[in-house]
């Protein structure tokens, strides 16, 4: 393992250790934060009980759908805007200002349109995540060296082949950045949405535990969400590193 990896582990382990000591010694009251070891046991207990299975299923299926929609939709729209520059010029100010909009303020409106349940959450998370993918797609396609497109012409590639064999792999590193952001934003969109108005899901359960001062349950759930998101992102990151190494990055 590299020196950097050791330093990283030492920082995380040190932080957890300090928190453990602070909580166990009473320096931090349990009404505020519980010891990390108790968080782990609370999380294990919650998962073992199976009570949360429907919530976990709902949250992660909503996140999964939002991830797929935002990646596919973001790439398609990004590709369309790249292909048709006047449309892109028209859209540029909207894209630049998009993340200044407080998306969650529209959640009540989405409920009016789509009703209660997971649909408004999926729409909210998709809208939140998709623009990151659009911007990454545009950045990737803009930076494809012109000589590679001329090479595609020399090999008489059809538009579909050019897209599949040249544009997609050439834009790959930027697309991966977009995918990572889309994954993160989809999680944020769904779980934060569940906090506000949903009657189910992991986000709702965290909010419910918070309202009832049930700290072990709340921290157990927060730890669970963190663990899943980190594991998912590390998988994407590892694959991205694997691809980047080939390119000498």
């Amino acid at each position, binding site marked *: 393992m590299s020196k950097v990896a050791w330093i990283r582990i030492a920082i995380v382990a040190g932080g957890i250790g300090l928190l453990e000591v602070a909580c166990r010694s009473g320096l931090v009251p349990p009404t505020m934060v519980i010891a990390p070891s108790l968080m782990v046991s609370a999380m294990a207990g919650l998962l073992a009980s199976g009570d949360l299975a429907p919530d976990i299923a709902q949250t992660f299926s909503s996140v999964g759908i939002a991830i797929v929609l935002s990646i596919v939709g973001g790439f398609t729209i990004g590709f369309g805007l790249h292909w048709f520059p006047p449309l892109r010029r028209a859209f540029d100010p909207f894209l630049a200002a998009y993340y200044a909009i407080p998306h969650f303020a529209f959640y009540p409106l989405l409920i009016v349109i789509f009703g209660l349940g997971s649909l408004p959450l999926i729409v909210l998370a998709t809208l939140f995540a998709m623009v990151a993918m659009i911007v990454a797609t545009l950045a990737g396609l803009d930076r494809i*060296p012109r*000589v*590679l497109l*001329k*090479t595609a*012409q*020399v*090999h*008489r*590639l059809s538009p579909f*082949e050019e897209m599949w*064999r*040249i544009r997609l*792999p*050439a834009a*790959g590193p930027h697309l991966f950045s977009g995918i990572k952001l889309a994954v993160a934003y989809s999680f944020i969109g769904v779980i934060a949405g569940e906090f506000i108005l949903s009657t189910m899901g992991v986000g709702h359960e965290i909010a419910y535990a918070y309202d009832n001062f049930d700290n072990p349950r709340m921290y157990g759930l927060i730890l669970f969400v963190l663990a899943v998101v980190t594991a998912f992102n590390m998988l994407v990151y590892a694959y991205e590193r694997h*691809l980047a190494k*080939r*390119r*000498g*990055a």
Partner: protein
Amino acid sequence: MAEPAVSLVRSAPMDQPVHARLADVTRVYPARAGQPAVHALGPLSMELRSGEFFSVVGPSGCGKSTLLDVLAGLALPSEGAVEFEGKPVQGMVPDGVGVVFQEDASFPWLTVEDNVAFGLRRSGVAAGETRRRVDFAVDFMGLRDFRRAYPSQLSGGMRQRVCIARTLVLQPRLILLDEPFGALDQQTRLLMGDELLRLWRETSATVLLITHALDEANLLSDRIGVMSARPGRFIDIVETGWPHDRDSRLAERADFGAVTSRLWSLLRTESMRAMGQGARAK
């Protein structure tokens, strides 16, 4: 200045049939966003004979690369006609034409082997035949020990060899090279020039090389087309008269410098004109 293109081409003592032809070709980039139209090329005519090595030299911005793009079918001429093997070239690179560019055009996501096999695999050539041709091209370009490497692990010269090998496997009858060694150091250029001559002799392909290096054009070519400043036309076509079986040691010959000097004497005024055009454009 006279308009010598056609008559000079006809005077070339080549007894081979015409392989590719440009007839009164011009290329004008239309005006856009406050910029006037740019007349980049021509009218220009030329005939490439089967199996010859023809180089084009000219001042910066004279339309050399435009000439190659038009001949390759990568760009349409504004006027005039382009033919390859007797058939018109119309906005598409014809079968049998290979192009190598100055910029690194290797695919960074593919290994050397997969880069070289790229064109064969997508054209549905049988796996056995693909392997045979890739093995040959990889060996020919001295890439055997690097076949599983990615372009990022190779030097600039080796990446350019990958691009040449990728062209070579398709067995092109006409190879167009747009300053392929432009980014390489002088020693590597000389060695790559030798490899290019070996490739030309062994494949019997017709080669058109665009270069700004007069000694490189001199060393490699049977004939050298000297272009004027923009809009590029041929002001002369110089026959070198070098033996078919030649390599970089040709530069040691006493008469080598005389050809380079002649090229420079033809180009000097045009290069100064081109510098003036560049200054005005700024």
